[in-house]
């Protein structure tokens, strides 16, 4: 039997919780509602065509977002491919080797990186990283490994898919690191002692412990992908913004988020273009929900198995 004050307590907390659910539902509703027109008009070719040609004439207006989907996947892929080894080695370094004071320093630093406004990364990418990558990374790669399709096109400017991937890696790293670090640090002491008691070296122990947190690593990779796919400002500034699909990392491209950000202001002038941008947004929403759901499920399942309360 609940007391009166407890019931009031429950009642007072219900509205805020309901508001959050309602906001989420409203968001899904709005995105589906506005995407339907372009989907009815173009069908699934909307996702499969690389022709993005807004036009004021109804007959020739056509919107295909394949280049943006491709760009989103490639840049997020690069980001995670770079962030994963970085955060893994950071995790091992801080938990196995580093003295406590350095550990505190680094975790503060990484927490701070996670909190920086994204426009800061974007401007830094625009002014510093893009020219730097062009000179120090892209040009040598093209000169010596130009026969690979990945590096085949001449890096005539730093604003490219690769630069977007690198800046995303820097932005995603704090998150993947935090998740891995938490998982690694929360392996119960008994396991560690057991491994060391078997006579394992530090290196061997780390390998065994790492294999224990594999689900958490996969989960953090998925969550990182979700974050990278949805990042907007920084990517828009460095990716070069062309609706092209090229296997070469030095060419410019588009992501769904940068497509929406650059095109929204003038979209109402063209038939069905607003709907097309909502459709692109819906794709991103579904992708984000899927990645986050699976990622969180993996991390949670691992926590339960380890008996760690989150």
């Amino acid at each position, binding site marked *: 039997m609940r007391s009166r004050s407890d019931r009031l307590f429950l009642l007072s907390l219900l509205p805020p919780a309901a508001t959050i*659910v309602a906001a989420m*539902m409203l968001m*899904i*509703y*709005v*995105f*589906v*509602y*506005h*995407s*339907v*027109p372009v989907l*009815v*008009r173009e069908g699934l070719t909307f996702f499969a065509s690389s022709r*993005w*040609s*807004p*036009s*004021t004439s*109804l007959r020739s207006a056509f919107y295909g977002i394949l280049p943006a989907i491709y760009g989103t996947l490639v840049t997020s892929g690069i980001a995670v491919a770079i962030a994963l080894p970085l955060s893994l080695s950071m995790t091992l370094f801080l938990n196995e080797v580093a003295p406590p004071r350095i550990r505190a320093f680094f975790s503060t630093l990484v927490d701070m990186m996670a909190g920086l406004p994204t426009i800061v990364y974007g401007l830094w990418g*625009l*002014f510093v990283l*893009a*020219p730097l990558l062009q000179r120090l990374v892209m040009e040598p790669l093209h000169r010596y490994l130009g026969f690979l399709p990945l590096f085949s*096109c*001449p890096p*005539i*400017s*730093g*604003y490219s898919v690769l630069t977007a991937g690198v800046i995303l890696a820097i932005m995603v790293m704090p998150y993947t690191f935090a998740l891995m670090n938490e998982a690694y640090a929360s392996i119960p002491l008994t396991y560690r002692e057991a491994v060391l008691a078997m006579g394992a070296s530090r290196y061997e122990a780390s390998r065994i412990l790492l294999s224990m947190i594999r689900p958490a690593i996969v989960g953090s990779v998925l969550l990182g992908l979700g974050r990278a796919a949805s990042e907007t400002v920084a990517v*828009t*500034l460095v990716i*070069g*913004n*062309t*609706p*092209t699909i*090229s296997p*070469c990392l030095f*060419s*410019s491209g588009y992501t769904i988020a*940068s497509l929406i*950000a*650059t*095109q*929204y*202001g*003038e*979209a*109402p*002038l*063209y*038939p*069905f273009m607003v*709907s097309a941008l909502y459709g692109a947004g819906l794709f991103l929403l579904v992708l984000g929900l899927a990645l986050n759901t699976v990622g969180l499920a993996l991390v949670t399942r691992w926590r339960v198995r380890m008996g760690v309360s989150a």
Partner: protein
Amino acid sequence: MDRGAIAFAAMVVIVVVAAALNGYRHYEELLQQYTHIHHVEAAIVGGASSSGSRVLLQGAGATFPLPQLLEWIRLFMETHPHIVVSYRGVGSGAGQSMFFERTIDFAGSDPPLTHRQWLEYRGLVMQVPYLLGAVVVTYNLPGFHGTLNLSGRVLALIYSGKIVYWDDPRIQRLNPGYRFPHKPIVVVYRADASGTQYIFTLFLHKSAPRLWPWSLVSKVPKYPVMASGRARGGKGNPGVAQIVLSTPYSIGFVEWGYALEKHMPIAAIENSAGVFVKPSIESIEAAAREAFKHLPKDPRADFSDDLTYIVYAPGRESYPIASWTHLILWTRYPCTKARALAQFLTWIAEEGYRHMVPGYAPIPEPMRGLLLKAAHIIVEGCVRG
């Protein structure tokens, strides 16, 4: 799966189904809207509400005139303390839809209303080209001092990818005093839809119609050079400027004011009389004077093709990539708002053009009559209550 997750999934399914059903109706409405013209009959009054004794005029739209409008608004409000004017730069398209949804009182739009829109709102809506600007071609050519000469033909060849190197004879011929390096041209364009881009491609079409067909005139054109891998898109003027500044051997186009602010080199462009002209207040006004001869003299008229007159305008002094931007107004407002708006328009015509921000040119004297006429119509037709 636990019960909570199932409930959540069920909720999502319901929401998606409801949205899809309503969305289909939305599709049919849009299709109607894009294929048929409904003449809007009802008198439109109201719009953004005003509070207290102060009259509030809200505008939004094109970002191109933003610096000049903000300067005018600041000066106007100093001498008219009972009127509050606001303007937000949200893009021409967004400004137009806010205007027609009546969330704002006036819109700024780089392109005029299309013929179809004008037919729909005929008699209810007014347009005034009120501010001149220019698109300038800028470049990053190490070791080059002086002024680069370019023609619409050469620019069309560059943006369609047919001229690849700086030392192409067709560029060389326009600039006989300088030996160009054998370097590929990095071609920079605006990645976002923008009026700047429309003006630039319209210029390419008018000066080289065979090389640059009408289908490539757009706010978001698909430049043939994109396929070459030598093209880069920047977001907004800042994005284009930054790419050009940091990429040797690149070429791009930005708004005049932006190039001035960043001290970027500005090319002289061949006009329709065969003269290479740099943008200046005089050369832009000269183009507007020529174009005004073809414009309707009543703000209620159809302005839908007015940009084709100012771009590549005739005349030896005219800068060929000049443009103007429009105010979009209703003919009828509630009387308090109408009087305030008329004051603002009259103030621009009589006082505003003496306070120009670098990068813009005032419209020539005879064109200012359009602003005064619009002010007159608004006051005459105002609705009491």
